[in-house]
């Protein structure tokens, strides 16, 4: 007891932080929202959004189909068809909103959870499943849809995005780049280096942080003492926090951010405040580190229910529309299931195929050794 009170006394005696050096930790964070959890449209003076009923219906369709694809993948993992799956459940609006804000010439650098962004970039969902099944490490052509390969090491891709954006500036083009990352990645050196490079070179890149509150088992409070979007000010560019479960707000804010970046004004940090409703991956068990009450409270902010409520309230869609979306969802589920189950294993010599772009004598030699070894078995190469 004596020790404790002494420590307290010392703490009290220490001089306070001068007002001009306070970090703003306690200041309330502003959240840009255009659609309340109840489905009511609200306006934000800085991020106006004009939409047609057709556009809102299209966003709804995206959200539903992306969630269906994700659920299907989780099931396929449970059935042993995939080795692992990283679900995006709960983050559909952040991904669809930002993904639909991009122009065809823009480029996305994803983590391993950006299935909704991939959907918006028209990447075949089956391409995403190859690496989770273990038939490749990605393997799609990133330049075909301007959607880079999934990056598993946390935060590395933010530097690739920044370098790519520096190239856009050199080319004199008016494209822009989105670097996706999460709250955990915000602690990585690479992310902070990306902020520095993007800032000093005025690179047209939007840093889109999905703060889903959890980095596997570590809450955001393990990563930061200030709201993440405020990190941007230290690097000299704007930061915005948007309701990550509000697809309209994510669309409006990202569209603004991309236009800001492509117009030569440099990078923007967007913090999409959302929640990882599922486990980190199918190998994770969130019951060990977070409370059901917390997850339940976020259910009330569900991105799809909120847009559905809006469509219903405003009479923007009829039963035929919802039936059509449901049918598409079933069709997608079927295609994904069949596609994964019939996905062939690669030939073992894939190991040697693309190690280098140009011939490398050691790889050629080891391939020949393997092929001779395989051929030495009865029946040839079927080891």
């Amino acid at each position, binding site marked *: 007891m004596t020790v404790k009170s002494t420590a307290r006394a010392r703490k009290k005696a220490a001089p306070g932080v001068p007002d001009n050096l306070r970090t703003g930790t306690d200041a309330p964070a502003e959240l840009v929202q255009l659609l309340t959890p109840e489905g009511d449209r609200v306006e934000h003076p800085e991020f106006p959004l004009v939409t047609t009923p057709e556009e809102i219906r299209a966003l709804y369709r995206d959200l539903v189909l992306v969630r269906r694809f994700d659920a299907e993948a989780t099931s396929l993992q449970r059935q042993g068809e995939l080795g692992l799956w990283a679900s995006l459940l709960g983050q559909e609006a952040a991904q669809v909103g930002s993904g639909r804000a991009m122009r065809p010439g823009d480029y996305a650098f994803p983590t391993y959870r950006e299935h909704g962004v991939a959907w918006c970039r028209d990447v075949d969902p089956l391409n995403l499943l190859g690496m989770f099944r273990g038939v490749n490490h*990605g393997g799609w052509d990133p330049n075909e849809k301007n959607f880079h390969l999934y990056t598993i090491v946390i935060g590395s891709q933010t530097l690739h995005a920044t370098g790519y954006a520096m190239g856009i500036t050199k080319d004199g083009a008016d494209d822009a780049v989105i670097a996706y990352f999460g709250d955990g990645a915000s602690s990585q050196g690479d992310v902070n280096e990306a902020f520095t490079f993007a800032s000093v070179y005025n690179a047209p890149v939007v840093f889109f942080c999905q703060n889903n509150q959890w980095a596997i088992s570590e809450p955001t409070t393990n990563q930061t003492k200030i709201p993440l979007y405020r990190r941007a000010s230290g690097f000299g560019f704007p930061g915005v926090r948007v309701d990550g479960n509000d697809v309209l707000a994510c669309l409006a804010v990202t569209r603004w951010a991309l236009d800001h970046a492509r117009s030569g004004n440099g990078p923007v940090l967007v913090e999409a405040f959302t929640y990882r409703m599922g486990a980190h991956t199918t190998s994770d068990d969130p019951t060990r580190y977070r409370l059901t009450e917390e997850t339940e409270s976020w259910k009330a902010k569900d991105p799809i229910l909120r847009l559905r409520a809006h469509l219903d309230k405003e009479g923007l869609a009829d039963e035929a529309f919802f039936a059509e979306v449901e049918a598409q969802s079933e069709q997608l589920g079927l295609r994904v299931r069949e596609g994964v189950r019939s996905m062939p294993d690669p030939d073992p010599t894939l190991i040697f195929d693309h190690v280098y772009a140009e011939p*490398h004598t050691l790889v050629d030699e080891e391939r020949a050794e393997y092929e001779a070894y395989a051929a030495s078995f009865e029946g040839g190469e079927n080891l």
Partner: protein
Amino acid sequence: MAGQLNIAKALNEALRKSLENDPKTLLMGEDIGKLGGVFRITDGLQKDFGEDRVIDTPLAESGIVGTAIGLALRGYRPVVEIQFDGFVYPAFDQIVTQLAKMHARALGHVKMPVTIRIPYGGGIGAVEHHSESHEAYFAHTAGLRVVSPSNPNDAHWMLRQAIESDDPVIFLEPKRRYWDKGEVQDEAELPLHSARIVRPGTDATLIAYGPMVKVCQEAAAAAEEDGRKLEVVDLRSLSPIDFATVEASVKRTGRGIVVHEAPVFLGLGAELAARLTESCFYHLEAPILRVGGYHAPYPPSRVEETYLPDLDRVLDAVDRALAF
């Protein structure tokens, strides 16, 4: 082009030619602009090619390599300078995890024509972290090519070939030889990954690269006075290694001694010894020997001569090999 140049100038000319020949070639690094790099390898290049192509970067090695990867994805051909060998480790993750694997992960859909120049090795009386030889880390990583020239002609042509390669190349510059002069030819004599016999001999083969080639040549000259004819092979390329040239030489001489500044334990010498034992077993008169650094942090400069292989240590190994 032909004429006497030192390695530093030969490299500078190679960068100049590469910038002239391909508008997509960029130089990136710390202090490479107005200063011309701490070793002046990029001297005058920013003045002639502009800040847009010769880029002074923030002091963040991971950031330099990571953004170089992004620029390569956009169609550029970045040539990165890491200021000193010991400063590359912050970029190690981007090099090993991202740069080396990108082509394979994309099943060949994207190429990574990134050259990473690193002044390496000791012998210049430097402070800590300025004298390291880390080639084994990079050569151990599939997806990277690793080369190291030993003379001005190779420095010039190998750098141009490295920049032209569509694969990532770790280009290790023997910094203590930067001021050694030599003839630079009008054309490349060899492909990037070929070794070269720089001195023919019959009694034993000395296998070296980068800064140790000169030491081995001096050792061979000294041995000749004792009537021993040593062959010296300059590996030039560490990934891939031109095993055919090395194996042919060791089969002729029956003895092989690998010399490098890097620690002996699990160094390039270990791979060469294993490999030569396997492929030249019936030709060997002695085990393959290794001469190199010790399993200790690179020492303070006042004792670095003890750590670095020199003429005497090479000749000592020759004596041991010939005693079998």
